[in-house]
């Protein structure tokens, strides 16, 4: 620039058409951007609404089931037990071993008399289960005739819910014309009803859709996540504190930092292989158990919590640390009295993200055997179990039509689980959040 030369400028005329045009363009750009944002938002909302509508419309019937009324005579001779053997020691065992199927089959045959259908097409394989429950509750019923509602087959269930197209050609639908006639006749008699499916909410997986339950998978998820949280939260938070507040800044901590960031990006199936190699093969822990699933998911969640924790700790203003150090707080007092309480909302947010990811994770659990067919509700951390997303995956793979609504119902349960978990964490975070 030449020295001392000041270029004289004409006074700015804001009323010039070029100026006006520029202002107009600026406003147009603002409007366009706002419309774009709004458009993106509505598109996302639309997709979400569509997704929820599909799942709920398909799944809501999964929480209901159809029952047929039968009159069963709890004949001790047919059951193979007598009054004295069930009240004495070992009575429970005797009750469990009684031949309920024979009683139920007799009752069912009586029910479908004259309808020209096989009882296997009407009552579920597990129709005898309510009989056992009734007798367990009241031993005096032995020898008496009781009227009881028992689950129908999946085909009848679908007929009742209207999910079978009756006008379709007979060979393309799972029920024959005779069966439809039998169903209509029973329905007309008032022997068919639809109720909330308590089996679905209290039992574990089954090969028959009408007997399959989600509770086993839900409890498996709960136990697995419990292990994950108990392990990854304290370890993750302490790691974050150490790295942020104590660790010397040198090459080793740099390597650790890079490794943690990389671990957070490792595909989850790799963690499954790690779990298989280390926990199952090396430590010989039980296959398909929530404890192994929890350990594997904890490995996966740890880096997420460490990274979120470090960011949250870093965002605590240094003036707070100075203030605490200035009145003579020791480093550990600074961390636990001041830094951690202020960082906790951020740490919790990271933990929510990590746990939500762990809840929805399927791949690593397949590797450690949690995709097994588990017909019992897990009773502990070392008993075979499955988890909600794996259960959904398994059911979506089933051939039987009745599993379609079960799959959607399981998705609803998973979403409710997720909502509850996130809701609780957000509540905690808002409660702990403080201004500084």
């Amino acid at each position, binding site marked *: 620039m030449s020295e001392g030369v000041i270029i004289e400028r004409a006074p700015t005329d804001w009323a010039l058409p070029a100026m006006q045009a520029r202002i107009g363009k600026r406003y147009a750009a603002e409007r366009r951007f706002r419309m774009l944002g709004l458009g993106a938002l509505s598109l996302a909302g639309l997709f979400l609404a569509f997704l929820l509508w599909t799942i709920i419309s398909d799944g809501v019937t999964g929480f209901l089931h159809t029952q047929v009324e039968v009159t069963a005579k709890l004949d001790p001779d047919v059951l193979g037990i007598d009054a004295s053997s069930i009240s004495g020691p070992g009575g429970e065992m005797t009750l469990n071993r009684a031949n309920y199927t024979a009683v139920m089959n007799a009752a069912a045959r009586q029910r479908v008399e004259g309808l020209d259908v096989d009882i296997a097409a009407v009552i579920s394989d597990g129709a005898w289960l309510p009989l056992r429950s009734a007798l367990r509750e009241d031993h005096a019923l032995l020898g008496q005739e009781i009227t009881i509602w028992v689950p129908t087959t999946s085909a009848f269930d679908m007929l009742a819910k209207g999910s079978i197209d009756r006008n379709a050609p007979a060979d393309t639908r799972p029920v024959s014309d005779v069966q439809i006639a039998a169903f209509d006749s029973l329905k007309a008699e008032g022997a068919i009803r639809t109720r909330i499916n308590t089996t679905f909410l209290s039992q574990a997986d089954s090969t028959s859709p009408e007997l399959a339950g989600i509770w086993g998978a839900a409890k498996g998820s709960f136990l697995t996540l419990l292990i994950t949280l108990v392990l990854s939260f304290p370890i993750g938070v302490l790691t974050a504190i150490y790295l942020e507040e104590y660790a*010397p*800044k040198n090459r080793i901590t740099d390597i650790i930092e890079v490794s943690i960031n990389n671990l957070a990006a490792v595909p989850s199936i790799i963690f499954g292989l790690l779990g298989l190699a280390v926990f199952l093969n090396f430590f010989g822990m039980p296959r398909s158990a929530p404890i192994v699933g929890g350990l594997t998911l904890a490995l996966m969640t740890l880096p997420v919590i460490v990274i979120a924790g470090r960011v949250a700790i870093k965002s605590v*203003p240094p*003036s*707070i*640390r*100075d*203030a*605490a*150090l*200035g*009145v*003579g*707080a*020791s480093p550990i*007092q600074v961390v636990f*009295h*001041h830094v951690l309480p*202020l960082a906790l909302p951020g740490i919790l947010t990271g933990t929510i993200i990590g746990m939500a990811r762990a809840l929805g994770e399927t791949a690593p659990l397949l590797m450690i055997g949690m995709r097994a067919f588990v017909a019992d509700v897990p009773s502990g951390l070392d008993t075979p179990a499955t988890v909600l997303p794996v259960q959904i995956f398994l059911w979506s793979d089933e051939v039987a039509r009745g599993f379609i609504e079960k799959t959607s119902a399981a998705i609803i349960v998973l979403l409710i689980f997720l909502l509850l978990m996130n809701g609780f964490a957000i509540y905690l975070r808002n409660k702990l959040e*403080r*201004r*500084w």
Partner: protein
Amino acid sequence: MKIMNLTAPAVDVATLPTAKMTARDVDVFYGDKQAINSVSIDIFEEHVTAFIGPSGCGKSTFLRCLNRMNDTIDSARVTGRMELDGQDIYSPAMDVVQLRARVGMVFQKPNPFPKSIYENVAYGPRIHGLAASKAEMDQIVEASLKRASLWDEVKDRLDESGTALSGGQQQRLCIARAIAVDPEVILMDEPCSALDPIATAKIEELIDELRGRYAIVIVTHNMQQAARVSQRTAFFHLGTLVEYGDTTDIFTNPREQRTKDYITGRFG
């Protein structure tokens, strides 16, 4: 640039009280960069000592050495000797936590804890176990707030957050928090730089009252403030202590040309 150091001041030492803190040939390095170059100074009891000097002259750095707040900076390194009541504060035998309780600090920006006013003041005494009962703690809190001239303004709302106070009140709360642990020396790092003139006047008044009990060291950019509140003034420039003496002498009759230039506003 090595200039003469004024160790124990040449002026009438006999009239001065005993030195509370002494520094001899203190150097401070941040990595390879030397921030403080061979500073020797005495801080006297019941006196307000002001550190003045242009930005970046090392006065805040030196202040933070007096209670080892520089320990929190990884690259900082301090050499030389610093004593509190004749005890080397950088010796391994010195407990840093105890040192900071004895040498309290008030920072440039008011930094109350995001807790209640009561908790802000009670925190220090609590971690040092200075109060045996709730009643005793109440007394400490009340006395500290009174001494910081804040009691009348907050006595009805001790449960409210300390961060909800105005800037000047927050700074007085920080002073109350510092004196609640009953320190012997209070270090103030530009305590008024974020405050308006009225709040500043209150703090200055407070500093003058506190002088009767504590040795106070105040870093300030405001030369009028140094002249108003301090009895002793130290002029720092480029990491060295240029001149140290009675405030009146420094402001009316400086011995060094650079001091003269600075206080007359010729540079800085």
